[in-house]
């Protein structure tokens, strides 16, 4: 996954390391950190949205059918959604290297 580059050299760092572009954290794709990915079983899903509420990365959103899915560009694979899902509709599976 292609990442936004850091300043190349020390003298390109802005004074105080100030970031002048608001909201640019979204250009950093934290999905590259993931070791496991969440897989939804929509037969078990009751569309309660608890995964959406608890996702610390705010990368889970509702699909057109009312189910839920993670944006894998940002999902770090923390597993909180699977832990919180009380119908156990989410399982974490190993990413293949």
């Amino acid at each position, binding site marked *: 996954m292609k990442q936004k580059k*850091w*300043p190349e*050299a*020390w*003298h*390109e*760092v802005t*004074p*105080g*390391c*100030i*970031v*002048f*572009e*608001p909201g640019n954290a979204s250009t950093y794709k934290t999905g590259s950190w993931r070791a496991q990915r969440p897989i939804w079983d929509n037969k078990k899903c009751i569309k309660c949205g608890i995964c959406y509420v608890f996702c610390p990365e705010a990368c889970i959103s509702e699909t057109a059918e009312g189910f839920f899915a993670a944006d894998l560009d940002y999902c770090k694979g923390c597993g909180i959604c699977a832990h919180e899902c009380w119908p156990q509709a989410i399982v974490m599976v190993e990413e293949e290297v």
Partner: protein
Amino acid sequence: MGKVVGMEVGIAAAEAVGLCNIDVAAVYPITPQSHIAEHLSDIVHDGRIDAEFITVESEHSSISACAGASATGARAYTATSSQGLMLMHEILPIVSAMRLPVVMGNANRAVSGPLNIWNDHTDIMPQRDSGWIVMHAENGQEVIDMTIQSFKIAEHPDIMLPTVLNMDGFQLTHMIEPLEFPSQDEVNAFLPDRVPFATLHPDNPLSMGCFNMPEIFAETMKAKDAALINSKKTIIKIWNEWGKMFGRSYKPVETYKNKGAETLILTMGSMGETASVAVDELRAAGQSIGLVKIRLWRPFPLDELRAAIKGCETLIVMDRAISFGGAGGPLGTEIKSLMFHDHDRPRIVDFIMGLGGRDVKVEDFIAMVERAAKKKDETYEYYGVRE
């Protein structure tokens, strides 16, 4: 120039801050800094200046409040001492990393324990690597002058770093000295309004103090180091400008009768005045001796120190602090290390003395000079400790 007044130096420090058009002061009182806190609070609450005095609950908060105020573009001042400075420690490298020009006064006092409220330099030394500009004043006039200079230094667009002005607790802060204040017009002419590099404002969002991944942290640290090292030339420029305006010159390393002297005493802070009397007495007795005084501790003025001690045979370093378990006092070990590659460097004798308010008198300096002459090696020694 204004007329000479008799005033306690701590009060004078607050009066000097009062001339600097500050926006925010967040100061928590602590002996021997309390008179600065109290008098600055009076100046604000008597309506003499238009500033906000934040009565914080601790020094961790006073420095944090100053950092926040400074990030919005305000001119912010704080002052502390000893334990207060230790409590600020966590925030100090953040202020410098964010390039916020907070100005601090520090009334040097021993660090506990055991509890001791008197002067030495053990409070500022643990802050040495925080990335701040660290300066030491020798007398009350310097406290006034350097307090005003501090704002210009800190805020200069080529510097943008916080400064701490050290003034020895009691020995300096509680002395009543004849002092001369510049007029408000003169200060205004010397010290322009702050023009911040960036400010926190909802209309123009930006982020300060951001997270650094390993891929960029080292580059950020090098940039911070370079900013501090590069600040020296601008500090000298500002000091020269002050000298032209007010007739009192300031240099990173001050000298007294150092030309051609075989032996040199090196001091930092108020004891330089006493040492100069010892130099006079020893010179009258036929000794080839002089004095060098470190005014600018960070960034360290190595070139200026080399020039000041050129040709001397013995350099006697007076350390008013300890680096426990180390190779000597912080000043002594640093100077030895910086001069390690100099082929014609002097023999460097390091004395640890004057701790926790122990007076260092003229006769003590003379005794240390005698002891240094007899000393064969360069190991450090405690002076005046009862055996």
